[in-house]
């Protein structure tokens, strides 16, 4: 190691100074694990409060990083720093996003029936740990850290999925999640090793530079892309690694499903976008399209992603049509949503290297909308399930009368997921379609349109049950906290649909 010791020390201390939110989260994991040992009796609220305070604290320490930019940790190589993590607005957005998801799912966990009479410290610790892993995913600029972040978040998610030991479906979901997850991770690792072999570095910047200076074998890049995409697709719940989704979403405790479907997907997209940014910086065709691949000259990252987008939305929507379990339906819906989101990534990858390209605004805007609409939907499902034991679509019969506000909130969220004006989902999808059309991916936009129509079938299945089917059972009382959370999640969906101008600018500013 040719490093000067004082230089290294300097890098580490500067790194730690920019790393406070992660340190807070790490401490929070330890505190929560210990809390179960030292707090007597079953007090789910105590640990929930500890978690809340810790998450808010982490958010407060994260806030100033909005202005920060630059890489932290790592080493000096030829006079430039090759960091492990980067602090920029893009990372900040996704870190805040995951933090907010963790925070929003806390009240849901308190409300979840199976969680009411047990110690919850370990569960919260796992959620916080998953969030910590996602922090690393959002900021990773090094193959090792990207993979480590994914694994970190995954391990915590595996355990949280199987957290409810009395629930057999939880264990089943957990074992499927961990087995398929480790296969995906192994395949991805093999791809990463090829990238390392071809470029001789783990650092994104160095890889990009190496690719620009001396290039790499198109065949090798293509193989690595296919292998690596498997791992990323697993985290994004996108085709072809989407099949775990329904079982895990159904098996996991509903609050954690909500967390998984929002935060985990977002972190998966964050790490993926940053990864492909390193591979599509070049001006030459060899990076955007892999050039002289023997069987199809136009194959490249944009094509790969566009194909995955098309298949994700189609497979997700078609499979969702046949579901009668609400959580499974939302799981397939989230696969389809990953497809819509991948459209924006495909356009982004295609636009890199062009002066006007590379706008991540639509992706981020859709994620803002997705946060509210998907969490809103899961919130209602959790609340209703914990009071009526509702699992299936038919269990929601007559909810329009039994719990009018909850039903209204769920309807707004479902309409938003479907993409009907005036909701955030519509304006979000509009921008996704717009970028696709603008970048000559009209076929993908048309396919997304057709998919929207298909998805109306199953979203409306639930709406129909709530309003058009009768159920004589009495009113469902839901409590103030839940009503407040519902309002906090549903109102922004409408705001994003009606007055979205400022949010467009805002989401554009989070790109890199």
């Amino acid at each position, binding site marked *: 190691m040719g490093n000067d010791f004082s230089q290294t020390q300097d890098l580490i201390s500067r790194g730690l100074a920019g790393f406070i939110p992660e340190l807070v989260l790490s401490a929070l994991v330890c505190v929560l694990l210990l809390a179960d040992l030292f707090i007597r009796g079953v007090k789910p609220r105590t640990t929930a409060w500890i978690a809340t305070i810790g998450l808010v604290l982490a958010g407060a320490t994260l806030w100033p990083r909005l202005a920060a930019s630059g890489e932290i940790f790592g080493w000096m190589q030829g006079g430039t720093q090759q960091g492990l993590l980067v602090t920029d607005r893009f990372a900040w957005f996704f870190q805040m996003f995951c933090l907010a998801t963790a925070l929003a799912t806390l009240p849901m966990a308190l409300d979840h029936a199976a969680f009411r009479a047990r110690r919850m410290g370990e569960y919260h610790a796992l959620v916080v740990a998953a969030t910590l892993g996602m922090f690393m995913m959002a900021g990773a600029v090094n193959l090792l850290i990207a993979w480590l972040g994914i694994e970190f978040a995954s391990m915590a998610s595996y355990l949280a999925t*199987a957290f409810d030991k009395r629930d057999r479906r939880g*264990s089943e979901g957990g074992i*499927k999640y961990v087995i398929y997850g480790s296969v995906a991770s192994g395949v991805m690792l*093999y791809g990463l090793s090829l990238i390392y072999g071809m470029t001789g570095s783990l650092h994104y910047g160095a890889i990009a530079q190496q690719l620009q200076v001396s290039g790499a074998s198109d065949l090798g890049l293509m193989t690595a892309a296919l292998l690596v995409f498997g791992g990323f697709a697993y985290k994004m719940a996108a085709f072809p690694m989407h099949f775990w989704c329904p079982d895990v979403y159904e098996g996991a405790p509903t609050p954690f499903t909500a967390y998984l479907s929002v935060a985990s997907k977002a972190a998966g997209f964050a790490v993926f976008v940053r990864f492909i940014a390193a591979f599509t910086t070049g001006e030459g065709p060899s990076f955007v399209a892999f050039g002289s691949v023997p069987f199809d000259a136009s194959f490249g990252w944009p094509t790969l992603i566009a194909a995955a987008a098309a298949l994700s939305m189609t497979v997700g929507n078609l499979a969702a049509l046949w579901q009668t379990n609400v959580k499974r339906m939302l799981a397939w819906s989230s696969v389809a949503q990953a497809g819509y989101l991948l459209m924006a990534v495909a356009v982004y990858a295609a636009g890199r290297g062009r002066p006007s390209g590379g706008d991540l605004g639509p992706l981020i805007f859709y994620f803002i909308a997705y946060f509210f609409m998907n969490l809103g939907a899961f919130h209602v499902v959790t609340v209703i399930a914990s009071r009526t034991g509702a699992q299936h679509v038919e269990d929601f019969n007559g909810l329009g009368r039994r719990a009018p506000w909850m039903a209204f909130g769920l309807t707004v969220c479902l309409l938003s997921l479907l993409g009907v004006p005036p909701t955030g989902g519509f304006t979000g999808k509009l921008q996704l379609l717009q970028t696709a059309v603008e970048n000559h991916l009209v076929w993908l936009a048309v396919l997304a349109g057709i998919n929207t129509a298909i998805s109306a079938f199953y979203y409306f299945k639930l709406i129909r049950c709530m309003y058009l089917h009768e159920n004589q059972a009495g009113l469902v009382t839901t409590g103030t906290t839940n009503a407040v959370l519902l309002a906090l999640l549903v109102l922004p969906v409408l705001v994003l649909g009606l007055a979205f101008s400022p949010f467009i600018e805002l989401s554009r500013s989070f790109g890199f």
Partner: protein
Amino acid sequence: MPEIGLNHFLIVSALLFSAGIGVVISRKNAIAVLCGVELILNAAALNFVAFNRYSTPDARLDGQIFTIFIIILAAAEAAVALAILLNLFQQTNTVDVDEADTMKE
């Protein structure tokens, strides 16, 4: 006989990877699938070490470090998988991935 070089190791690793994929696809016992995953992980790790040894431009040990983390994470993953599996076994008396399938409708 040619001198042993990078490609030799890569071919060994490719063989391990293919064997691992084969195991993952054909086995139904969750523990056996896990063994297949270990093979895949080792293939990747072997790649990292081989590239580090034969083809990186400078004297850094990035590939070997990566391998250390692969080994650690493999251990953690095995622990998690087996813990969940034990719990599932207590409930259902099976470790068959396909049999643990009460959810599909």
